[in-house]
């Protein structure tokens, strides 16, 4: 694929297709969705995450299962355990949705996302900030309204948070134009998402990097 400055919608769709191919290979959960009316499409992924953590814990076996005691005795044992041990507060599980769309006005991909608790309550912008990785927090907190805003999803028409695309060219151009890069193919969407994803809790597995340099 030619690495010229103009990243058109076709290029976007091609990059997404390659990206999703790899996602399917490693079971990373990305899908392509099209809107019924037009040929517009976008990539999306949903994942569950414990607030301020990453992996939901496996439920511990009940005392009955653990001890093999009859139910009533096991229940007493469990009660004793609960009183004796510290009962940790239940960390809420958050459902994150990430959508990658193409912005015709900026001619770059854009990351839309939203998050809600399992009961459907959406997270507030403040909650989202708490989830932003430490190394980005200082900078983003200086001007959050410039970088993460709430907007209507262009295809679904629902409110989403958006990582503003106006600076995308600024950090993508040096990467694309790197003169040291000889005959190296870059998947724009992979590179871009690897940079912006971690800002909002989305980390790409390393194998995407290896896939990107082999494709195209």
């Amino acid at each position, binding site marked *: 694929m030619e690495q010229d400055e103009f990243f058109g919608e076709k290029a976007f769709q091609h990059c997404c297709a390659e990206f999703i191919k790899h996602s399917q290979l490693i079971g990373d959960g990305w899908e392509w969705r099209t809107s019924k009316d037009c040929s517009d499409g976008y990539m999306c992924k949903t994942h569950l995450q414990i607030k301020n953590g990453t992996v939901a814990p496996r439920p511990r076996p009940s005392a009955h299962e653990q001890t093999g005691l009859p139910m009533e005795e096991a229940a007493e044992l469990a009660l004793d355990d609960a009183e004796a041990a510290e009962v940790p507060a239940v960390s809420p599980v958050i459902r994150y949705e990430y959508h990658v769309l193409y912005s015709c006005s900026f001619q770059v991909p854009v990351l839309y996302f939203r998050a809600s608790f399992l009961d459907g309550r959406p997270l507030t912008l403040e909650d989202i900030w708490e989830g932003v990785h430490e190394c980005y927090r200082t*900078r983003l907190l200086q001007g959050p309204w410039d970088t993460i805003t709430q907007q209507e999803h262009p295809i679904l028409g629902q409110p989403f948070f958006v990582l503003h695309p106006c600076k995308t060219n*600024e950090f993508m*151009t040096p990467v694309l134009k790197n003169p040291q890069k000889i005959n190296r193919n*870059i998947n724009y969407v992979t590179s871009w998402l690897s940079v912006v994803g971690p800002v909002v809790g989305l980390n790409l597995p390393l194998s995407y*990097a290896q896939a*990107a340099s082999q494709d195209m």
Partner: protein
Amino acid sequence: GLLLVLPGLATIPSTSVEGQFPLATFPTSAGERHTAVIVFLSTFTVDILLKAVGDTPIMKTKKWAVERTRTIQGLIDFIRKFLKLMASEQLFIYVNQSFAPSPDQEVGTLYECFGSDGKLVLHYCKSQAWG
């Protein structure tokens, strides 16, 4: 006294003393005892070559021995301080010249996946990305 023998690479200062083993004590003519501590850097560190991208300042020292458990975030913080970047400037690190590993990714893992010829090449780029 303590002699520290290092291969010819700069080391990013670490607060841990892992990897330092006293190998031998030997008396000197003055009757003092010296301990030679040879740091087995290759076991605990990986060799990294840092390359600047775009307008980013070039680091005077490009080759570094970094302990395997150092994260990308840790490396970013180090380079930022070294280059004296402003708080508003963001620094990105790339493997394969195009992919930014997540901040918690360890350098040792990146070396396993992307290292060659005994080193890991990392490109770094500064940006006003969100400013």
